[in-house]
């Protein structure tokens, strides 16, 4: 059970790792997109 649900004994299960990776990937791409926008629109001038 702990292996499936993850955090029970302080260990992280593969499902939690997967969801965390997806979550951080989304943050990374949004941040990259915003940085791209910032550099093309504002920092250019």
């Amino acid at each position, binding site marked *: *059970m702990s292996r499936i649900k993850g*955090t029970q004994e302080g260990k992280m299960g593969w499902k939690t790792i997967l*969801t965390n990776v*997806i979550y951080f990937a989304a*943050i990374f791409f*949004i*941040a990259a*997109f*915003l940085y791209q926008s910032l550099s093309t629109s*504002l920092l250019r001038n």
Partner: protein
Amino acid sequence: MGLTWYILGLLSTGSVILMWKLSRRYHMNPIGWSVPATGIILVLFSIAWSVGAVLEGVPRAASMGMLLFGLPGIAALTIGMRYVTTKLSLKVPDEIATTAIPLKEEFFQKKSEAVKTKAKKTGRMSGVIGYMAYISLFAAFVFGLYSDGKDYEGLLRLKMPDEKLVKVNDSPVVFQIGDKVEEKGQYVLIQEGQGYGGPFVIGIRINDDAKVHEVFPLENKETPAFAERVTKARYADQFIGKPVTDNFLVGDDIDAVTGATITTRAATEAIRRGAHTAAIDYFKFKKSWDKVPWAFGLKEILVIILFALAFFPTIVNKTPWKYLYMGSVIGIIGFYLNASISIGSLAGLLLGYIPGIQEHIIWWVLVIGTVLTILIAGKNIYCYRICPFYGIQFLLSRISGSRLNPSPAILKSARLTANTLLWASLMIIFLSRHPGIGSYEPFAMMFSLEGLGIQWYLLPVALIGSFFMSTFWCRFFCPCGRFLNRLVTIRKNIVIFFVRDKQVKETT
């Protein structure tokens, strides 16, 4: 590429071991074998495809590969695994399964308690940060307002370096080419038309034959992918040689660029205004062109019906109506019209970029309708009802049956993260006064398959995330939803403030 093959090798071995373990645990049948195996093959293929495409510098192909092969692969794998674990009988009785339920409850109870405690703490902190965020946004708004003012004159001179330009009018800006003459000279007018993202500024050259001779797009704030379509297409050519007294109406004497109707309308509006101003003011023609007609057709009727139906709880909550409604929203507002609201539309509203109602009824119904419903009734009817991207996520999560979440530590700070992203997006929009560039939602590209650079990576991540975590995008990232819900809260607080004030007065 070598590393990719190595990882693929490891994943393939892992998959074979997984299937072998399953076959030892369950009485496998052909479906139990074939569905997960197909899923595994599709996923591995999509990884190889995407990495190859990225290395070749074609992110769009990588994204398409992940969507076309990766997502069905994950779907097949999950459905296959669900089938095997729920429908097929065990070879060995599973003792762990009997203790699973109390453990599960305990786990979730602990998790929710942890989240609640942290929520209280972050609540106080975010109060202070919240005020600072509002102040900085206001400052950015004011700064953007005063720093906005591109040098169109300079841009125009760059485009026509050999001509002598004499400014003869300020509002709208009109230049005469060559020396000033009283009548029938050659002119360049700078005019703007309102799109969804902001003004589309165009320079129009009209010669002494009272015909349009050149159009120069000077600036636009449309979604870059759509603007690119309009400037790339031979859109501008259709104006050359047209008399200034023509109608200049999209769908009448002007053809829209497929898939970029709104941007086409904005650009055409600018050219129409330029030509008609010149016709009256400089060539002394009488008004002989048609008025801008109301664009009221099937599309507009469908959007009004869908918007109205969102007010009926039975339709949006009860099966089978719910699925029928969701399907219509995905099909019509998503794929057919690609009219979903984004943070760009809402920020554009704050910046005063409001397109004319005659040609943009759909925008008015969805954006103004949603905001007015919040202001009047205090209800956000857009999210979880009209939003087609929610529909897509809901269906994905139904297919997977998975209700996963990131780890509790992440959940605790999820709200702060989402608010920070919304703040960053609004800051960029206000400072640049360009709503399209700060709008990071993948909606528009999901339904039109048009995007730029990094957006191509965000869409698959959002969809794969929604597959595993229900309403992944809405809960953790959607800036539009966050903005609308924030508006609901602000309205509620104002109402409470006034009601309390009234009650205090009544008691004293």
